[in-house]
């Protein structure tokens, strides 16, 4: 009973952060800031969602159902895969975006294209 409650709470936290990632994708101005929302929040949300699935699998395993072991171990492997590939994918997208000439929006400084922006934060805020 308490076990089920823990599982529901974990699913809730995971869903909250995944929804947050979706809202972030809509609200942020350019590709880099959207990637911030898209990688951090989905990874964190997935940790909790998969954690709940692993707990469910362990519970089934405890009750002598062999399908539980399949569920728990395969989900753990999926979690490892997500943790490894999500940042690498984000890095690849960011690098490709910068190479194809997309400047970071509202940037204070851009050392990668070797030309410091003249607009400081305060001036930009004043100009808005």
């Amino acid at each position, binding site marked *: 009973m308490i076990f089920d409650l823990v599982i529901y709470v974990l699913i809730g936290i995971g869903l909250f*952060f995944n929804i947050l990632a979706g809202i972030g994708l809509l609200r942020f101005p350019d590709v880099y800031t959207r990637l911030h929302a898209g990688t951090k929040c989905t990874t964190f949300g997935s940790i909790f969602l998969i954690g709940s699935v692993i707990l469910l699998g362990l519970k089934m395993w405890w009750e002598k159902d062999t399908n539980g072991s399949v569920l728990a171990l395969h989900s753990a492997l999926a979690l490892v895969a997500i943790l490894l590939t999500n940042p690498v994918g984000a890095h690849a997208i960011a690098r490709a975006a910068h190479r194809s000439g997309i400047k970071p929006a509202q940037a204070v400084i851009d050392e990668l294209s070797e030309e410091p922006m003249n607009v400081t934060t305060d001036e930009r805020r004043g100009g808005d």
Partner: protein
Amino acid sequence: MKAFIVTTIVCMIIYLILTTGSGTEVLGLWSFIELAFGLLLSVLIGFIARSVFVKDSYRMLNPIRWFLFLGYLIGPFFLAITKANLDVAYRVITGKINPGIVRIHPDLKTDLGVTMLANSITLTPGTLSVDIDEDTNDLYVHWINVDKKALERKPVECKYICGNFPKWIRRIAE
């Protein structure tokens, strides 16, 4: 020979995880035929891919490094991920951003160390690794909330971007 053994064992572990529930003969999880076939495949793959999987050093064979890595994942890394998500949540809701791309010099030498640091940076508060200078292993990092104080010294000091991660990673991977 060492490379072959390492590759075979890693393949076998992944095969075992993917085929759980195939029978009840071994530990209630695997069948004998599945184990035999997995061993055959692992040996074959270990033979073919040994030079791709293991480059030149056997540093990561040391179990102390694995426990350090596990401790790093559970301790400072998970804490940083949690902080990162609260930070992004705050920025999603308020829309306050102040972005920029800065260059940091983490002073790591191995490929594995730089990969781990870049991945950690991407998942920790307000930062996203964009590019790498392969001669000096400098990282270009997109920073969502640039700190004015940090820009006074070039290249920007690591403690603003990634805290004490380079220390941990140097202990784990170098």
